[in-house]
């Protein structure tokens, strides 16, 4: 299973730690099987989760899928600019979800985001949204599975087939057994392991570097350019390693991409929908935001420390053709190998595996819900029992994992698919945000407006992507600069597609008949009386904690300006 070309080698204790992890997640899954009898248990975890469990699971589902290694590598490549994806690219959106959008998701008692679209805009919007989500989720799951197997091959020398099958069978078994309840419980466990396994790297790294000031000085000795300021270098496209302007970060990332992801991607929203009451559902994203703000400690800081104490890592293409060279994509495992001794290394590797598996379980459980309730159920003319849908959900879990495995092998043959599918995923999220937001906040939005707006936004995003592929000079128009890198292009494409979605939804709505207000109760802000929180003490109110998180968010941006 292991070969000598691996970055790190595990001893007996390390392997025992990894093996115990697999046994425990499987054990939890089978233990929870007895508590998942009904559809509400299997697909919504009984809607009994506390704010803490829903909040930690909300963040953990996103921590998977190369998040740890990918952003540590981005920090090595782009410096502290990568932190924008954790702060302005997450916190405002999470707070917006908590305070503005969550009441409507929760009060409408929907089981999914496509389910909300069905209530608000009808079957056509729900079907379009569900098909896109199901297709993309399962493909992304396969791509992440392949990426994880590739990482395990590079880091540990494990065979790719071994990694794909062992991890996917484990996830399939525990989600099959305990449904969303099992996925959520394991995500909380995985979240703890990720922190405890990865936190030692920045701690020992800062000791070696001699503190923040000396680390910054060493980075300046090793490299030219500004790697340690969040905002100072993005006044111009050419002054920063990412080739991005602050407008792309604020309006593309902060206002559209992150809003779209954190408020409408069912993979994460599903976790919050399991909360036991509305207050917990509002608190969960706020708790998640608090932890999300701290993730750069274990992801971005190791990348920055790498720039200081381990200069010379190169891009993937250069590493392949240079003997003895390492890619910055490997910076996190290299830092683990640098600092973590016996036992600790096993915990660090377990953190990586836990990250991958929490993301995969998130994809699979969300796919099972959307497939069962938003695609399969509407197709059944006959009324079926709750037990029937639980059975369908369980087998959809297996089907989703098998399709993901198939995708993983497809990507292995045609690596370029990865670029296209990741782009496809982003095509859908930005317009969906436009549709859901108008649906919740504008009572005049009609069913036709919602459907055509979503379709136009998605189609225009694909069109812009194709235009730049065919004619690279179009980048100057789409991303406002010929110097824009892929990330910057994504930001602007998301912004335009969301604006197109807004425009089409508004225009079509103005020419079509809206639903009567009585049918919009619980779905639209101006037609819904939200439960008052005045009887709660200040420290019990979600808005208070949202204010605290917001204040810390602003302070962090000022400190690292």
């Amino acid at each position, binding site marked *: 299973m292991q070969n000598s070309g691996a970055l790190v080698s595990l001893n007996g204790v390390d392997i025992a730690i990894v093996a115990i992890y697999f046994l425990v997640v499987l054990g939890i899954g089978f233990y929870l099987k007895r508590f998942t009898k009904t559809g509400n248990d299997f697909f919504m975890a009984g809607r009994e989760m506390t704010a803490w469990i829903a909040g930690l699971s909300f963040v953990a589902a996103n921590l998977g899928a190369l998040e740890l290694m990918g952003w540590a590598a981005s920090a090595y490549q782009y410096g502290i600019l990568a932190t924008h994806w954790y702060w302005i690219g997450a916190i405002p959106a999470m707070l917006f979800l908590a305070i503005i959008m969550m009441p409507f998701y929760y009060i409408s008692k929907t089981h999914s985001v496509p389910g909300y679209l069905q209530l608000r805009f009808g079957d056509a919007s729900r079907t379009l949204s569900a098909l896109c989500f199901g297709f993309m989720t399962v493909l992304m799951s396969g791509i992440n599975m392949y990426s994880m197997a590739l990482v395990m091959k590079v880091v540990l020398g494990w065979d790719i087939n071994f990694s794909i099958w062992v991890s996917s069978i484990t996830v399939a078994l525990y989600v099959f057994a305990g449904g969303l309840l099992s996925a959520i419980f394991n995500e909380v466990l995985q979240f703890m392991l990720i922190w405890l396994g990865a936190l030692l790297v920045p701690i020992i790294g800062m000791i*070696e570097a001699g503190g923040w000031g000396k680390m910054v000085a060493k980075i300046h000795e090793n490299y030219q350019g500004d790697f340690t300021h969040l905002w100072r270098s993005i006044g111009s496209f050419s002054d920063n390693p990412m080739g991005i302007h602050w407008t792309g970060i604020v309006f593309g990332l902060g206002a559209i991409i992150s809003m779209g992801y954190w408020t409408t991607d069912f993979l994460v929203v599903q976790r919050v929908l399991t909360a036991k009451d509305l207050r917990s559902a509002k608190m969960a994203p706020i708790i998640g935001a608090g932890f999300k703000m701290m993730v750069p400690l274990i992801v971005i800081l190791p990348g920055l420390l790498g720039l200081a104490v381990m200069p010379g890592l190169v891009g993937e293409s250069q590493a392949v053709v240079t003997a003895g060279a390492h890619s910055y994509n490997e910076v996190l495992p290299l830092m683990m190998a640098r600092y973590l001794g*016996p036992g600790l290394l*096993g915990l660090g590797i377990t953190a990586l595996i836990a990250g991958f598996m929490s993301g995969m379980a998130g994809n699979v459980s969300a796919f099972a819900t959307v497939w069962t309730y938003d695609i399969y159920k509407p197709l059944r003319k006959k009324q079926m029992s709750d037990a029937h849908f639980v059975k369908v959900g369980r087998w959809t879990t297996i089907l989703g994992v098998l399709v993901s495995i198939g995708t993983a092998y497809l990507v292995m043959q045609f690596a370029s698919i990865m670029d296209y599918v990741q782009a496809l995923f982003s095509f859908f999220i930005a317009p969906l945000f436009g549709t859901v937001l108008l649906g919740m906040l504008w009572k005049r939005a009609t069913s036709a407006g919602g459907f055509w707006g979503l379709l136009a936004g998605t189609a225009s995003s694909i069109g812009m992507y194709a235009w730049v592929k065919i004619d690279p000079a179009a980048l100057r128009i789409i991303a406002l600069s010929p110097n824009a890198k892929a990330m910057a292009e994504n930001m602007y494409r998301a912004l335009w597609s969301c604006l197109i979605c807004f425009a089409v939804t508004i225009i079509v709505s103005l020419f079509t008949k809206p639903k009567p207000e009585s049918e919009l109760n619980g779905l639209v802000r101006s037609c819904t009386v939200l439960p008052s929180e005045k009887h709660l003490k200040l420290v019990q109110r979600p808005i208070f904690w949202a204010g605290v998180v917001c204040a810390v968010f602003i302070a962090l941006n000022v400190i690292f300006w």
Partner: protein
Amino acid sequence: MHKKMISIWFFIGALLTVYGVLIFGAGIYDLIVPGKHNVVLRELHAGVWWGALLIVVGLVYTIKFRPKKVDEPEKKDELK
């Protein structure tokens, strides 16, 4: 949550305790019989204190969230 369901924090506590024992043990062994591992700042013996920290945190969670017998009022609730 279901009244008879063991808390996830108990599982986390138990797992951290086991991990703490393994890591602490490996750290102590490495202290007594230095192996070939050549990590930077090895003299900090991070395995020893990190393992000890995991044991403490793990035990706190294990004890605080250990499974308890269902008391009478809860039994009545379930019968309803």
